[in-house]
Each structure stands twice: as structure tokens, then as C-alpha cells.
């Protein structure tokens, strides 16, 4: 099936090396960055914390702790806008003391120790490091990597397709941290019992492809596939169809098909945690859009997004829209006071000109383009009509819950009907 082509705007960003962004004066660490219930703070106002110290956790199974990205003092526990949940969430405010004193949260291992380390110990490091799916889903990684024993994992897919049209953080990691990614993959292989590895990337990542072939090419049971993958094939189930031919029903998880798909940034974080003892307190964020110089920034989690604009000397008067986490699936945020979270893969700024384009919703012309464009073969306009009626029984019969939220239907709609967001909200 042909997938809709989404124009990429990456030419500048993909050739710009990762730059270390200065630590914030005040870090604002949101309490639930993972997909699940919020954490409880382990610190109180006035407490002194060290960089990497665990500051909130939960006893819930589907949860992942968070750590202080800087050293300093807890000055407030209050709420702030979170792009993860699109609401105001509780957060821990930490004032930077500038000392960068590090806490010894994790016990790293050396590469030679990996072979004799038990999977449970590795999973524990990943859990304690607060690693979640950094591609945007935010599912705790230690749970994803512990599939039930009755489902042996045959395939590990490194999802290096990064189809979001403005995002380049993963691509820079592929180029600059290739060896570290291999270390991360080895950790996952150890945990999952040596599955075959498929690194799936795009030919358009011209600088990354040879690096991947060089580093991963000689590894046993490892294939590097540089394909003409489309944006929609970045979805785990759609990618598996491209690689292995089968379609995963939405009722099943990937592991039931014997496959685990991991995102690049997550694998990088795993390697940092296991071998360097670094909890997840920073991530690479692409800064792109209508900006003069797109960048890839290694930013501390909790850094206010406004810092990124200030440091790049961007006058907020020129900015009309700020999107976090990708233009197709991410969210437009109402305020730049909101902080960077583990799920902020990119910050995309748009000026007035982008919003002057024809965006007004008009009546459906019944062209059925949304139906032919849907990568999971849904009927977006029929589901939308059922929701608007409202006739939720009909929407369910049309499998509204199977929507992967890729946004392709809204993207192609000539009448600018908000199909994807309406269907996602109805799930």
C-alpha cells in the first residue's frame, strides 16, 4: 500500500551537530512524564538535591521514577503546563546552585561485565534510571523489555526511521553516538535472550546510514535496512509490516508477535544508564521550524522551553505557534513556561506566515482521500461523521479505537477537517 508522502523540513537540522545546552536556573520537573499515574515526590520544599538524585517515584507497576537534572534546592512544588497530558500538572521546582554535584543513583557495569549480568539486574538499572519510551509514547521501558515468558522475542527492531517531518534528534544520535547505540542494543539483546536485530532507517539519513552499516554491519544476527520508509512506517506496527510482512492487530502487543521495537533515543539512554550510571536527566531535542538556525540541543529535563528561545535570541513576538514532540503527533503548547520533559523530542516554532495559509475547516467534499491515506486502513471520515452525530456505537463498529493517531488523514484532507484529533479524542 502506498503511504502518503509528508514533506520533511530537515535539511539544516540534520547536519547540525548536537550542542550542549546550558543548565537552567530553575528546573521544573513534571511528576508524570511516563504514560501512567503521576509519581509522589520524595523531596519537600527546602530540601537540597544532587544531580541525578531520585526525587519522585511510585509503587504503581506502570511507572518510572524521575531525577533531579541539576544540583540545588527544592523551592516549590506547584503546577505547570505539561505537553505530555496537555493540562497543568504538578511539578518539582529546583533552584540551581551551580555546583553540579552528582548523586550516585545507579551502579554502572563495564562492557565486559555485561555477559554475566542477569537480565533482572539490567532491567532494574533501566527502571531506576527512569527510562521511558523517548519516541513520544512514554511507556516505561523496563516493562516493555519484560514481556511474559510465554512470548519469546525473536526480533528486536531499532526504529531509526524518525519520520516526524521536523525532528532530527534521533538522526544526530545515529551519527554521533553510533557506538553507544550498539552498547545499548547489546544490553537489550541480553535482556531479551539474543533476538535477531534489525536496524531500520531511511536512505534520506545520508550521514547516518554508513555509520550504522559500519558499526552494526559486522555484528552477528544483525541487519541494517536503509529503506525508503514513509512517515507512517515509523509506527511500530506499521514498521513491522514493512519489515516482516505481518499485521499486528491492535488487540495484540508487539511482543505477542515475538517482536520488540525500540526507539533510538531510548536505546541511547539505556546505554548511558547501564554503562555510565547516568539516570535519564537530559535528552536531545531538535529545535526547528521557522528558525534561522535549526539546532539539536542536549537539554536537561525540566528546562523551561522559554530558555531555548531566549538563548537563541528569538523574539517571542515573531512566534505564533510552538509545537513540542513533532508537528504530526506532538502538541501545540499555550505557553513557553512549560518545561522540557523526557518526551520532548523536538521544539518547533512557527511564525505568522505558517498560520496565514488556508486552514479554515469547510464541508467534506467526499473525495475519500482520508480513507486511501490511512496506514491502518480505517475510514476516518465515516468515523468522524459517526462521532459528530454522535453515534459512538457506529464509531466503534468502524474501529475508531484502532487509530494510531499518525495524523495522516487530517494532513491530506482538502477540507481541513480535524479527523485525526477527533478520532483520537474519542478512543
Amino acid at each position, binding site marked *: 500500500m502506498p503511504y*502518503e508522502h*509528508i514533506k520533511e523540513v530537515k535539511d539544516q537540522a540534520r547536519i547540525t551537530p548536537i550542542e550542549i545546552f546550558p543548565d537552567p536556573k530553575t528546573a521544573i520537573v513534571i*511528576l508524570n512524564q511516563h504514560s501512567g499515574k503521576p509519581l509522589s515526590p520524595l523531596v519537600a520544599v527546602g530540601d537540597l538535591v544532587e544531580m541525578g538524585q531520585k526525587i519522585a517515584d511510585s509503587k504503581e507497576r506502570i511507572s518510572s521514577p524521575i531525577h533531579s537534572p541539576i544540583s540545588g534546592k527544592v523551592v516549590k512544588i506547584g*503546577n505547570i503546563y505539561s505537553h505530555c497530558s496537555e*493540562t*497543568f*500538572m504538578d511539578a518539582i521546582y529546583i533552584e540551581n546552585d551551580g555546583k553540579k554535584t552528582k548523586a550516585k543513583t545507579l551502579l554502572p557495569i563495564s562492557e565486559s561485565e555485561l555477559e554475566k549480568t542477569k537480565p533482572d539486574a539490567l532491567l532494574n538499572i533501566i527502571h531506576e534510571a527512569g527510562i521511558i519510551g523517548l519516541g513520544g509514547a512514554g511507556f516505561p521501558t523496563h516493562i516493555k523489555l519484560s514481556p511474559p515468558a510465554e512470548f519469546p522475542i525473536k526480533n528486536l527492531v531499532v526504529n531509526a526511521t524518525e519520520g516526524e517531518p521536523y525532528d532530527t534528534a534521533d538522526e544526530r544520535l545515529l551519527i554521533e553516538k553510533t557506538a553507544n547505540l550498539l552498547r545499548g542494543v547489546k544490553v537489550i539483546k541480553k535482556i531479551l535472550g539474543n533476538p535477531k536485530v534489525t536496524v531500520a532507517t531511511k536512505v534520506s539519513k545520508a550521514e547516518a546510514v554508513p555509520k550504522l552499516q559500519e558499526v552494526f554491519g559486522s555484528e552477528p544476527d544483525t541487519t541494517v535496512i536503509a529503506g525508503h520508509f514513509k512517515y507512517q512506517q515509523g509506527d511500530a506496527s*506499521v514498521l513491522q509490516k514493512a519489515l516482516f510482512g505481518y*499485521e499486528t*492487530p*491492535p488487540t495484540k502487543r508487539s511482543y505477542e508477535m515475538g517482536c520488540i521495537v525500540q526507539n533510538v533515543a531510548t536505546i541511547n539512554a539505556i546505554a548511558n544508564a547501564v554503562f555510565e550510571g547516568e539516570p535519564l536527566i537530559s535528552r536531545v531535542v531538535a529545535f526547528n521550524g521557522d528558525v534561522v538556525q535549526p539546532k539539536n540541543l542536549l537539554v536537561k529535563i525540566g528546562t523551561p522551553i522559554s530558555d531555548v528561545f531566549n538563548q537563541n535570541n528569538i523574539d*517571542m513576538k515573531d*512566534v*505564533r*505557534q510552538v*509545537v513540542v514532540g513533532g*508537528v*504530526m*503527533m*506532538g502538541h*501545540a*503548547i*499555550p*505557553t*513557553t513556561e512549560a518545561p522540557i520533559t523526557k518526551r520532548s523530542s523536538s521544539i*518547533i516554532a512557527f511564525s505568522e506566515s505558517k498560520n496565514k*495559509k*488556508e*486552514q479554515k475547516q*469547510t*464541508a467534506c*467534499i*467526499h*473525495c*475519500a*482521500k482520508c*480513507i486511501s491515506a*490511512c*496506514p*491502518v*486502513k480505517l*475510514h476516518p*471520515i*465515516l468515523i468522524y*461523521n459517526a462521532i459528530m452525530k454522535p453515534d459512538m456505537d457506529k464509531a466503534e463498529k*468502524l*474501529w475508531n479505537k*484502532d487509530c494510531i*493517531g499518525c*495524523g495522516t488523514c487530517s*494532513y*491530506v*484532507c*482538502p*477540507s*481541513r477537517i*480535524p479527523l*485525526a*484529533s*477527533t478520532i483520537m479524542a474519542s478512543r
Partner: protein
Amino acid sequence: MTNNPSVEKPKDLVVSPPPQITGTMSKTRVMAYTFAALLAITIITAILWWPAMTPHPDLDYLGLTGLFAMPLGAILLLNALIAVGVAVVSDFIIGKAAADSEINTMSAAVFGLIVALSYSIGVPTMAMGEMMPISMLSAPGCFIYVALISFIGLVGFKKLQGLKGRKLFNPAATAKLLVLLPFITSTFLIKEHWAPFAEGGLEVPKLASNLVTDYMGTQLTFSGYLQGCYGLPGAEPGSLNSIMLLTKFHGWPGGASSIAVIIIGAILIFFLRDYFKWRITATYFGSAIAMSLIMTGIYGGDPITRLLFELFIGSSIFLGFFMATDPATTPYSRTGQIIFGIGLGVLTVIIQTYMNFFGGALLALVIMNLTVPLLDRIGIHKPFGR
């Protein structure tokens, strides 16, 4: 988790649901491309038709020439101006008057051109032998009918029909059938054209030759009849192939040059891709060809003549590209579109063969429109992995 409603959004950032970017294709652009294609066909037909004057000088004895004799191409251009003008102005007035109605200038203009291109004008050479309503086929009579079809089609079948959501009937086709209903025997039925002059008229199923005798006492073959009908009035008719493929001088201006419609239609499909329901066009022509061959198998006769007759009469060719693919009145699903196209082809040939109906495609289209709600239901496919 707390939710603090007191914190206000700064006014300057636009918050909209994902995705934040849209494709380059918009409704206006789809309509503009379609309009450009239709305009190209209009211009080509106007140029091809310029040498033909209507009413034809041979009609002198009826006292019709002189007053409004003008090139057929000019009549088409005037018709196009009238139809587009009426549609766009009506759309504008309705849009201003009714609060919940959108003004779709481009869409109305496309509709107007379709009306002009599907309105039969011209006077065939042997029209003087037929009971053809000449005032409808040439200026100034045709102007009134074109304006009427454009107005009724836009107000009744585009706007009023659209109030209930999905439209059932193709506005241009239905309005044309409705307005021309009083003239159905003289404009659509082949047999009736000839009834006063030839016993039995044409027998389409057999493509029978020598059955008709024209008013001069000449015996005509079936293809000779078509040549006379569609050839350049007053000139020695060209071969049936060249008439049917290159230039017909009577009937729908939209299908005057079959080859031009095919080329322009193909270019439009290339530009619009999946925004154009090309599966209907493909299956329509496919099934019409198949049906035509089946008919030849049953009744004999020259397969090429039959093919030319079934595919290009009444400008099925224009209908197949530009009317049968009207997105609003055709199925959503691919399966539905394919069934729709096949049904249209089969019905067209049956109507043209057994009902002696010129332009059976028009009637077939309105009939097939009725099946769309059903086709939308059976065309639902299962999603990924289900």
C-alpha cells in the same frame, strides 16, 4: 494531579490539534485544477466548433438563418459564461443569505462549466429531417435552458440537497434530465427522431443497416446515420472513426473531441491522484467495452462501430471523466467505486441498446447515484490486522 484553570494561556500562541501541518491539496485547489481541465476542454471544443454555423444554412427554408446565425464555438463560449455566471452568482447570494451556507465560488464555477459542457448544442446535417427542437440546440434558445439547468442544479441539487449532508443525485445530470424531461422524445430517443420519416427507425441492438430511409429517400447505414449526425454540417462527413474520436459536431460540447477529453482527463488524474475517483472512470470504460463486445457477440454487427457508438455517443466520455467522478455523489470506498463504475458501464450499454436512448450514460448515472448509500455500506474494509 491538579488542574489549575486560573492560569491563562498567553494570547499570542496558537493552540490547535495535531497535526500542525497540512498537505498542499486544498478544496479550492482541487476545484481550481478541475476548473482548469474543464476550461481547456471548453476552449478546445470552441475552436473545433468554430467552422460550424448554427442554424445551418440548409435550414434557410425554415426561415431560421440570418437572425442568430453564429459559430457553434461562440455559442458554447456564451453558454459557458451564462452557466458559470448563474452558478457563481446563485452560490454567492445563497452564501450571503443563509448563515450556515459556505460560499464555494470555485466549486460553483466547476458546476457551471459542467452544465455548459453537458448541454447538447449544434444542429446535425440531417436535423432538418428530424423532429429536433432546433431552438434548444442553437442560440438564443439554448441560453435560456443552460441558465435554467445551472440555476436549478445549483440551488436544488447542490445546495438544498446538500442540506441533509450527503448528496444523492449528481446535480448537473439530474437538473439536465429534469429540465429536458418535457422534450424527452425529441432529444433523447433515437427512434423518435426518425419516426415521422422512416419506418421502424434505427435498430440499435442489431446495428441494423438499410433500415432507415432519410427524407431525401436515401438509404442509410447505421454508421452512416452516426456520420450524418455528428459530422461537420454541410460538409462531406469524415470517417466514423475520426468523427467519434477527434471531433463530433453535435451533442455535448464536453465530448466533442473524445481524444481531448481522454488526454486532459488523464492529466487531471495525474495532478489530483487519489483526490480524483479515477477508479470509477477506469471501471466504467472497462465495463462499457466489455458490454459492447458482449452485445456484438449476441447481435453481430461491426464491433468497432458498436464500440464507438457505446463509448462516445451522448458524450459518455465526458461523463465518465467529469460527472461520474463527482466526489459528493459517488461511493467513499474503493470497492464501492469499482462496483459503481461497473454498474454505470453495464447500465449505459443496456439503456442505449434496448431503450434507444441517446446518452444512456446520463440516465445510468442518476440510477447509479441511488445505489451509493448501499455501496458505501458494503465497501467498508477491515482495518490493519483485523
